[in-house]
């Protein structure tokens, strides 16, 4: 918050005297953007995490999407931000998946594959927490894990349609704008995703 306050102060310094309305507009716009980013950041992280199955990559992708929205599209009307932001996020997720795919193909041809592990896992981070969980929490965690796994196994477009509609709560039109396809396609993707998840999970309990 201190960083934001100092940013506001710096911006205010640049405004010539007698143009206070500009300062108000600038601060309002910054506040609106901050509110928007706050409202989407966690859901965006979860969407990226489910798609990428990697926390650090998901954080990077969300940060990139925020930066790009802020630096390029902040001047657009705020009602356009949500579809734009999720489109940027989706593009970043695809970029990471493409890079991974290329890297794994290249690594498959290298003779010393398996010896170099740049994604070293921290054993402390990976250690299972032995503390007992309440049964309800445990059930919920298991259900979430199963759901996450099932969503991750969906084709990309179905996954995107399902998460945007259920996690972010976009309507069909917003989802179509985000996915750059027709509303009919969104409905089809969503319905297929739902069918696949039902088939895999049954009527799971929360």
């Amino acid at each position, binding site marked *: 918050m201190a960083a*934001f306050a100092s940013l506001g102060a710096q911006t205010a310094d640049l405004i010539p005297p007698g143009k206070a309305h500009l300062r108000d507009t600038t601060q309002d716009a910054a506040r609106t*953007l901050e509110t928007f980013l706050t409202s989407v950041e966690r859901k965006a992280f979860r969407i990226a995490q489910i798609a990428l199955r990697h926390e650090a990559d998901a954080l990077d992708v969300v940060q990139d999407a925020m*930066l790009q929205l802020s630096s390029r599209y902040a001047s657009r009307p705020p009602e356009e931000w949500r579809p734009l932001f999720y489109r940027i996020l989706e593009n970043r997720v695809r970029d990471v998946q493409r890079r991974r795919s290329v890297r794994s193909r290249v690594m498959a041809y290298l003779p010393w594959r398996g010896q170099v592990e740049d994604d070293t896992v921290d054993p402390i981070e990976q250690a299972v927490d032995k503390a007992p969980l309440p049964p309800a929490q445990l059930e919920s965690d298991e259900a979430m894990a199963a759901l996450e796994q099932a969503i991750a196994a969906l084709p990309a477009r179905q996954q995107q349609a399902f998460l945007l509609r*259920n996690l972010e709560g976009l309507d069909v039109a917003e989802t179509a704008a985000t996915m750059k396809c027709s509303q009919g396609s969104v409905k089809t993707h969503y319905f297929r995703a739902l069918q696949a998840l039902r088939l895999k999970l049954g009527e799971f309990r929360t």
Partner: protein
Amino acid sequence: MTGDPTEAGNSEFEQRARALLIRSAEELPGAVRSRLTRARYAALAARPSQTPSLARRWVPAGVAVAAALGLLVLYLPHGRGLGENPVANAGMEDIELLTDNDAVPLNGDQDVDYDFYEWAAEEAAGATAPTLGS
């Protein structure tokens, strides 16, 4: 198939899935939340300013000053003071040239007696050439 697929959240399955997903987003670990907050501040800092920046406001003044300096450099005489201005001293030099007795006269060829030179040349030619029968 359950109900209208265009209406998300109608079925119990969807409601459960949504509740799980939203809860998982709300209950993120502290480290992740902190990183997201930092990312948000970085994004806000990258937001282009809506007001003219300090640098942009000083650009026209800078250009004007640079142009004035360029004109001064082009039109001011280099390496000479005002006292050494040749135009200013032209009158004095002219007077010195005209009053100098040792100088070659500017109108010297007007005083030359061309008839004398022609006669002398003829005389010299007559003296050196032997006359026939002498």
